[in-house]
């Protein structure tokens, strides 16, 4: 696998991990924009815009866009997070050019009013769908509670009200301020003809006008809070926890991921043996999530409401225990094996490599090969884990719980 990169005159970067032995390629446009770049007035605009990108351009209707992707046999989708909006497709290599043609075109969407009003309904349906399923919006709520008024605490979906009040003009203003060639890039992985890719992107995107784009990255001021939300119609009780963790820029993120694997992977971890294996909870896990300037250790428990308080206490005890006693060499070795196997197995699909290549470029403007990642995982020591744990303790997180319990104090 070979890494190639190139920057167009207008600042648009193109990066690729080229693997001639692959059967397919993954390619995408990665935009440095998301919920954190919004204001209250336009809450949900990044995600709504992600939908609108597929609804047509000056030379293609929405129907044309859908039909052409399908004609290319593309497996494609898009997603929006607090920081990023990504549009990607996995295609056979011979479709590289038409795929770039289509993707580059939709990146300059028309945002027609009819399409806008129709798609608004779909977004509202999506919001309602998530509101009806666990964690019933508490993933947004916990960020608000933990970070207060911080950009990362913004909801990606927005609310029904904020979305309904959006206008195409507001979306266009947002689009023009964020989708500038210096604020997005093209990433590709797999069987990629890089020289042709540069030509193809340059011919479609080379004339996009460059524009200054900035982003505030204020240091978060987080505090441990607790909230119990009553939802009578739920069957299970859900407990979410959020604690600070190493951010994207921090090399300690490898240690953080291993720490999270040992403590809360959905199999073979401390949380698994204490809470899942004995059948005390339906799910109990913890993961590490990285953002610019902030990281999260995010934990999740779902269980019978009658057992919720006891499980909360068990988790607290596990957290206290690990802070007092640390981890063992055995645990670290096992987690390293597990994570390395996942990296290797994952690397066999170009689409997965696309997200690694794109993700690394997005957060750090850096390329990491599979070998680099394996080396970084192997290099983590117990001392690293304990250092991270000291700097980012698990034992005073923000907690939100939702379910049939009317009051937490009432739980036994």
């Amino acid at each position: 696998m070979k890494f190639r990169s190139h920057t167009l005159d207008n600042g648009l970067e193109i990066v690729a991990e080229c693997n001639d032995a692959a059967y397919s390629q993954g390619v995408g446009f990665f935009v440095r924009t998301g919920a954190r770049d919004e204001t209250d007035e336009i809450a949900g605009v990044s995600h709504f815009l992600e939908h609108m990108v597929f609804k047509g351009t000056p030379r293609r209707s929405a129907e044309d866009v859908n039909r052409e992707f399908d004609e290319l046999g593309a497996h494609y989708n898009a997603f929006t997070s607090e920081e990023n909006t990504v549009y990607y497709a996995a295609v056979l290599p011979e479709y590289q050019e038409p795929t770039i043609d289509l993707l580059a075109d939709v990146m300059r969407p028309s945002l027609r009013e009819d399409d806008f009003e129709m798609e608004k309904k779909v977004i509202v349906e999506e919001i309602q769908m998530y509101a009806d399923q666990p964690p019933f919006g508490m993933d947004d709520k916990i960020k608000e509670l933990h970070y207060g008024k911080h950009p990362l605490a913004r909801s990606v979906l927005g609310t029904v009200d904020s979305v309904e009040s959006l206008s195409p003009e507001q979306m266009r203003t947002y689009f023009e301020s964020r989708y500038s060639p210096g604020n997005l890039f093209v990433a590709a992985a797999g069987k990629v003809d890089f020289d042709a890719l540069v030509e193809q992107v340059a011919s479609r995107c080379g004339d996009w006008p460059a524009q200054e784009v900035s982003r505030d990255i204020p240091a978060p001021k987080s505090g441990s809070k607790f909230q119990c939300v009553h939802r009578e119609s739920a069957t299970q009780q859900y407990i979410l926890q959020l604690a600070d963790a190493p951010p994207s820029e921090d090399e300690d993120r490898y240690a953080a991921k291993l720490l999270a694997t040992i403590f809360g992977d959905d199999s073979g971890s401390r949380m698994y043996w204490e809470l899942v294996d004995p059948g005390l909870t339906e799910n109990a896990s913890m993961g590490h999530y990285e953002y610019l300037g902030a990281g999260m250790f995010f934990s999740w428990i779902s269980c019978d409401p009658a057992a919720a308080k006891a499980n909360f206490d068990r988790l607290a005890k596990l957290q206290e225990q690990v802070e007092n006693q640390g981890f063992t060499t055995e645990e670290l070795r096992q987690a390293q094996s597990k994570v390395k196997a996942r990296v290797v197995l994952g690397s066999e699909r170009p689409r997965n490599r696309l997200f690694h290549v794109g993700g690394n470029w997005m957060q750090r403007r850096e390329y990491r090969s599979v070998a680099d990642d394996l080396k970084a995982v192997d290099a983590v020591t117990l001392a690293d884990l304990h250092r991270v744990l000291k700097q980012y303790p698990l034992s005073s997180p923000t907690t939100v719980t939702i379910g049939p319990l009317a009051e937490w104090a009432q739980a036994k």
Partner: protein
Amino acid sequence: MPSTSQVEQRTARTHRFANGLVLIGEPTEAVQSAAFSFMVPNGYSKEPSNRLGLSSLVCDMVLRGAGSRDSRALINDLEILGVERGESVGASQTSFSAATLAANLNDALSIYADILRRPHLPEGQLDAGKLVCLQELRGAEDDPSQRLIVNLRRRAYPEPWGRPSHGDESGITSSTALEVNEYWTRTYQPQGAILGVAGNFCWESLVEHVESLFGDWKAVEGSPITEPTIKQGPVHVSQESNQCHLGIAFPSVPYRDPEYLRAWAMVGVLSGGMSSRLFTEVREKRGLCYTVSASLQTQRDRARVLCYAGTTAERAQETLDVTFAELLRLREGVKAEELERLKARIKSGLIMQQESTSARSSAIARDWYHLERVRSFEELGRLIDELTSADINEFLEAHPPADFVFATLGPAPLKLPESE
């Protein structure tokens, strides 16, 4: 624009053991991993009707210690080998799948030989196993779309074929250690078992290794259970929620039917890719929902097309009417361009399947289960290339969507279309 990518030439090899176990291997040097899918002839259709969920319970229990390893050592050793694993209970088969670095394949298989043949089924952990299964049941209650599909399947299939794999509370709680043991003895056996392996390995060495692990596995004479049928459940399940969930099912042909590919293509035109009919009519043009889909679900002897949509309660009637209208419109036939687009997606998917050893290992095991042979990539590619819209329309003439079954979940029932 026609594609030029070719599937890699790979040959599936087969070895039938005297005890009934079938081993299928499709080696390739193009990858660093190896994966297997081990199917044993245990599934929810074999559960006594007062022990629904017994298959899931056994599937949980076999991982609680096996051979020389207690439950902790078992999980830990699999993780040290870097095994990514999954277990799934189906109608007549329970699948154990695992993927790992090629060098660890044999060690992983040895551990699975213990799991399947020498599980401890520790009585002291039976309560824990039951709790895990009950937790899964409770969790399913909180996912409205999952609840809807469970109800739709129960209504669409004759007993016992539409049961949910997670069973029910009384079935799980009443299961005894003896029953778990007896059920495992009867159903985790080589007669009807299939082991599919894909990835970087040597066939001859694999046969030798599997022979050493499973050659002396004893087949068990089966005795089918005849059970009284269970009532299939109401059309509408009431739930206070923003969204209403609706399902429509109709019969189709199973995988081993010579016409399966035509049925599969028909469903692809309905719901594969964003230019498909349901996505276009229900979501794109009318904005009625975020999720709308149809899929062809096959068992060995029967199949159903299952359609689903989730929408806010006020728009549910319109969503149902528009979705149903699309099912009826299918009877008028599919267009050549719809099929061409679908073929492009299918071909991409086939070629990309080669990249994943775990996808391939479960595909070859599944092929054997349905067809008693493996379809090579080339054969499948050729069959798809040869398919025409006239073929599909011929199929639609003979098997128009009909005999619809409905299920809804939400604040209020809906007016059901009149089935023709």
